[in-house]
């Protein structure tokens, strides 16, 4: 039987045993694979490699910020002519900042996080043999790979990678004479991003189709684990917003290469007046942030979904307010599309729009607050097991609260005047979006590693990794609030020429040291990850005593996921510590009729009704 027919899964409940022996050639099995689990691992490994690169870049520019006088000649073997007289070139500094942002937001937290776990968990948790289209899924990864390669190549060209900030505002990004990075580097950035968007859309369409069509018998939407709700809604957001970034990038390509004036007007640069008139740089900003803000939730919602699952499992309690959690995901998703202009309060946009977007922005804090309260309520009177995944999930909730609260200040347009583009903003989004999502990513890896590789990660290394990282990100990003309140602008190569920004040099050095130690600490995880993959303890089928369907598969699920029929679903995924039940968990595939001792009254009725129907 061919792969494509397998992937159709029209006959999801037919026995596939006889095909399990068929070995695919290496290239189909590990490289151009159509199996969602392999594709997930490809996204995972790519995401981790990019995380090392993106994190490494931040270490280099933190050296500049923390120790502005230091001699960095020793970096010359890596950075070559970007080091001049022992100093980082200021343009290269901007390139580093730009690449750090681009890589972290798109390649690590969008592709790495959502790509890995949407692919891995959607079929496994909804009870499907694979994605709706294995082929599109494979294309999604390989488009991402090509996009990655273009971005990677741009690091090595003579004029350097794009350097106008990850938001690539024109005219800076449109004019090669304005900054070196707007030459070939920017062209590669735009091409890479266009291909990335294709990859993201292929993935998202697949996720949506799979969740809607391929749920196993009994898996109603009201029985979906919150992970799947999060991935599903994330995919919807992606489908609606990424095309807008594509159009923004396309118009920018036109402006750069074909002489149009979408974003350019009345420019005099390099000793000449350009011909462009009538364009508006603000148009780009609107288009960019129409993706850019939902993008925040594209990286955050999967992390929150993962956290919901892990906190419930390890508190041995149902997630508190399952329906409220779904409601808040939907609310956040809807609102994420109508708050984008809070990034633009002081761009010259009509101040009336500023008032409107301030109201809308602060509304989005309500569903976010509900999520935070529900996590805390889930842990209340639980029986908490601290797996490394649970530690990272608790860490996520803390970072989500700390970073989210400062959003209340920044969303207030009157206060944003002073704080816009200062380190206060840097602190805010690194906590709420960067670190929180990264913690969700790590939580997911620790939790599902046994199902991915059939081995256990070493838990003690996991504990060390967590505490180091948790303390580390707070030590890096919390002090940035102080620097931001003092007014320090972001994307500054140095602050020495200003009296107003002459303080806090000791704090900046402290942040840099904390950043370097935290970055180094991630290699503990790197070691644990690769070592355990081969030499770790063997995993059991359901090591965390969890309810969801993926834990009913074999230790190393093969192609098609389940040996024999796909299990049917009879209950929601959060029957933990149910009164009357012998064990403290009841997997989703256990029928109500099998658990009369723990059924709630309405479940007992349903069980009887089902029995009568048979």
């Amino acid at each position: 039987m061919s792969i494509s027919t397998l992937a159709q899964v029209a006959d999801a409940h037919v026995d596939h045993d006889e095909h399990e022996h068929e070995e695919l050639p290496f290239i189909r099995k590990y490289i151009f694979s159509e199996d969602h689990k392999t594709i997930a691992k490809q996204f995972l490994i790519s995401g981790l490699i990019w995380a090392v690169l993106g994190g490494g870049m931040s270490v280099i520019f933190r050296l500049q910020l923390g120790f502005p006088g230091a001699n960095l000649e020793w970096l010359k073997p890596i950075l070559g002519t970007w080091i001049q007289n022992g100093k980082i070139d200021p343009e290269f500094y901007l390139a580093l900042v730009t690449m750090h942002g681009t890589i972290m937001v798109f390649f690590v937290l969008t592709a790495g996080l959502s790509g890995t776990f949407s692919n891995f968990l959607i079929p496994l948790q909804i009870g499907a043999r694979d994605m709706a289209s294995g082929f599109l899924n494979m294309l999604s990864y390989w488009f991402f790979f090509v996009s990655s390669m273009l971005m990677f190549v741009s690091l090595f060209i003579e004029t350097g990678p794009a350097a106008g900030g990850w938001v690539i505002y024109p005219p800076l990004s449109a004019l090669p004479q304005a900054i070196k990075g707007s030459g070939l580097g920017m062209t590669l950035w735009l091409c890479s991003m266009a291909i990335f968007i294709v990859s993201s859309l292929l993935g998202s369409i697949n996720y949506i189709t799979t969740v809607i069509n391929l749920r196993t018998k009994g898996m109603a939407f009201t029985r979906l684990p919150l992970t799947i709700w999060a991935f599903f809604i994330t995919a919807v957001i992606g489908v609606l917003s990424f095309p807008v970034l594509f159009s923004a990038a396309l118009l920018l390509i036109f402006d750069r290469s074909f002489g149009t004036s979408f974003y350019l007007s009345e420019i005099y640069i390099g000793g000449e007046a350009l011909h462009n008139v009538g364009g508006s740089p603000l148009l780009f900003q609107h288009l960019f942030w129409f993706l850019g803000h939902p993008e925040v939730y594209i990286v955050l919602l999967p992390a929150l979904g993962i956290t919901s699952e892990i906190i419930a499992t390890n508190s041995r309690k149902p997630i508190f307010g399952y329906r409220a959690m779904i409601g808040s995901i939907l609310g956040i998703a809807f609102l994420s599309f109508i708050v984008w202009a809070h990034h633009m309060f002081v761009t010259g946009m009509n101040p009336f729009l500023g008032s409107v977007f301030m109201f809308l922005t602060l509304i989005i804090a309500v569903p976010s607050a509900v999520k935070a309260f529900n996590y805390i309520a889930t842990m209340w009177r639980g029986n908490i097991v601290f797996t490394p995944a649970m530690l990272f999930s608790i860490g996520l909730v803390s970072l989500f609260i700390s970073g989210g609260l400062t959003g209340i200040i920044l969303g207030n347009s009157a206060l944003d005047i002073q704080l816009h583009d200062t380190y206060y903003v840097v602190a805010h989004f690194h906590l709420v979006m960067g670190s929180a999502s990264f913690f969700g990513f790590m939580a997911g890896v620790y939790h599902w590693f046994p199902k991915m590789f059939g081995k256990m990660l070493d838990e003690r290394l996991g504990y060390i990794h967590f505490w180091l990282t948790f303390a580390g990100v707070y030590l890096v990003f919390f002090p940035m609030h102080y620097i931001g309140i003092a007014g320090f602008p972001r994307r500054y190569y140095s602050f020495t020429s200003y009296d107003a920004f002459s303080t806090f040099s000791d704090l900046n050095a402290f942040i840099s040291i904390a950043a370097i130690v935290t970055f180094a600490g991630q290699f503990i995880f790197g070691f644990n990850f690769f070592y355990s993959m081969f030499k770790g303890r063997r995993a059991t089928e359901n090591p965390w005593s969890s309810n969801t369907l993926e834990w009913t598969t074999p230790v190393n699920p093969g192609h098609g996921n389940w040996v024999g029929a796909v299990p049917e679903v009879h209950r929601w995924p959060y029957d933990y510590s149910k009164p009357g039940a012998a064990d403290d968990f009841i997997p989703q595939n256990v029928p109500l009729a099998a658990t009369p001792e723990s059924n709630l009254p309405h479940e007992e009725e349903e069980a009887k009704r089902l029995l009568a129907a048979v």
Partner: protein
Amino acid sequence: MNTIIIVGSSLLILGILFLLFRVQSLMSILTGSTKKRVDGSNSINAILFPIFFISGLVAVYFYSGYASEFFLPKPASEHGVVTDKLFWFITWVIIVAFVLTNSMLFYFPYKYQYRADRKAHFYPDNHKLELIWTVIPAIVLTSLVFFGWRAWTDITSPAPKDAVVLEITGKQFNWIVRYPGKDGKLGSYNFKLIDATNEVGMDFSDKSSFDDFLPREIHIPKGKPVLFKIRARDVLHSVFLPHFRQKMDAVPGMPTSFWFTPIYTTDEMKGITNNPSFKYELACTEVCGKGHFGMKFLLVVDEPEDFDKWYEQQEAFLKKNPEYLTNVPSELKELALGSSNNSQNKLSSF
């Protein structure tokens, strides 16, 4: 040689760490802790959460005390006093929310750590509770928005008619400031007229530009509204005046503006900040290229009478650069000579 020692010792350390790791993982298999749901490390992790939180709070408390002198610089504009009050008010609100939620978040792991003899409380929802914690944040946020909205509409309202006007243009990598001169009207401009000397593209066929002058630093009078008309001629820049709580992007092709009323002169600020060399600074806050971090411009707040004196002493661009007289239409030449030379008129005429 040094390199060899560094590499060698790092390898040795890594080797020792690896051995330690092997020993502990073999030990945990021997003691059978891998077979149990939790081992001793569960209670260690549990207690670390409250310890982490309390030590974090203590550190923040003490460091904030020490660092508070560097917080928001002293506000030097009328609206800055308002927004600072609002900032600290909301900051206290979020500090309360932070401490409340995080206390629970870090206490529950300790309190409800796993015990084999206990079962978690099956508690899937409570509509009343959920309603409460949806409605309370909604009310708090609405009131915060309301205060912010009032401040915002005041700040962004049109500038008073009697405001002192000046134009600031951002370019890579400095600022050019232009005052309207005695007639109180900025002359028109065109980006195609820009050259090395006429950096903002002043149009000398407009008679309002004859007396415009371009000083080396900004002077504004205390206690009077000042309107900044903001332009950029190449890429985006952003005018940031930290002491005046004012920031606005400079956009090529789309003039922007802000206005505010300064309340302390530079000399008064020297006393207030205890810094005899205090200067108001203007910084760029929209990334604009290599020299982004060096786009500093100085601003002086004078007593109104000093400002008038300074204003009168400034020489018009046309007087400093008489070669641009050739761009003036012939019928206006005489007027141009007159208005760019004449410094008798009082500023108060506008």
